[in-house]
């Protein structure tokens, strides 16, 4: 799927110290992936709790959104930091798959969305004045983050 112009970058990634070390250490990948999955659980769980509020499902406390925000930011950082060594240890698998580039595009979109309009439109005041818009923002947020998780699961397969 990716254009061949990306090939030198992926080839280089596989020759770096980080890439070769993770690839050559038997336990490194599963251990890093465990942290990746834990952070994913924290992120998706928080995203669900925060955004389902717009639909009147589950948590209805505005202060929960504030409390979970740092967890969302920390889990995104952990996901990226653990994702980089995993991708670098098998760059050709990522280069050849459809899931990896789709996941990266969705990731950029989800981060951009989360820190701009999602926040503004789902704020309590904004949600009261325009509930439809807050539902769209919340629904898109859930959809984006869940798709990133599914695309990640797809990397070894397609």
């Amino acid at each position: 799927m990716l254009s061949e112009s990306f090939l030198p970058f992926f080839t280089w990634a596989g020759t770096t110290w980080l890439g070769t070390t993770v690839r050559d250490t038997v336990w490194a990948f599963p251990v890093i992936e465990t942290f990746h999955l834990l952070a994913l659980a924290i992120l998706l769980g928080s995203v669900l709790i925060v955004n389902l509020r717009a639909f009147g499902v589950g948590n209805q406390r505005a202060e929960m959104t504030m409390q979970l925000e740092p967890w969302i930011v920390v889990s995104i950082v952990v996901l990226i930091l653990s994702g980089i060594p995993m991708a670098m240890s098998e760059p050709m698998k990522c280069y050849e798959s459809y899931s990896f580039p789709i996941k990266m595009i969705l990731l950029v979109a989800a981060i951009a969305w989360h820190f701009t309009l999602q926040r503004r439109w789902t704020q309590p005041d904004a949600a009261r004045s325009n509930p439809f818009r807050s539902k769209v923002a919340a629904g898109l947020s859930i959809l984006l983050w869940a798709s990133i998780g599914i695309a990640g699961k797809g990397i070894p397969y397609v």
Partner: protein
Amino acid sequence: MTVLGFCEWLQALPWASGVKESSWQFPVIEGIHSLAISVMIWPAALVDLRLLGLAMRRRTVSSVTGQFLPWVWVGFILMVMSGAILFSAEAVKCYKSPFFRVKIILIAIAGLNALIFHKSVFGHAASWEKDPRLPWRARVAGACSLVVWIGVIAMGRGLAYA
């Protein structure tokens, strides 16, 4: 019938071998299994963190459990159902894997821990949940659950590779 014999019989069933041989069924069910982690583990962890006094300290324990435990059950049922299908497709591999055995033991410990907590201290939560420091049994239950579920995820990852 031995346990191994049961596993061989199970994965030879047409629907179980169908999941294994299909190009998309196993990864899709695995994806649901992974997503269910976030529906279950994070709400469960938030309850554990509350018991440890590390999150939502201004809210009572019963209000936190009332909000999050329904999600834990939804996620848990999803995980058990998707996990049972994944197990059926690779029953013999799972049976032989030490990671899988430890994973099942850890899930049993998590269940036992939750059961003991609910039957003992949580029964009279109203008498202690406003205290700044919760009873030691509540704190131990929270710490135990947190560690055990992280272990379950780690064993699941080990199982996929070993």
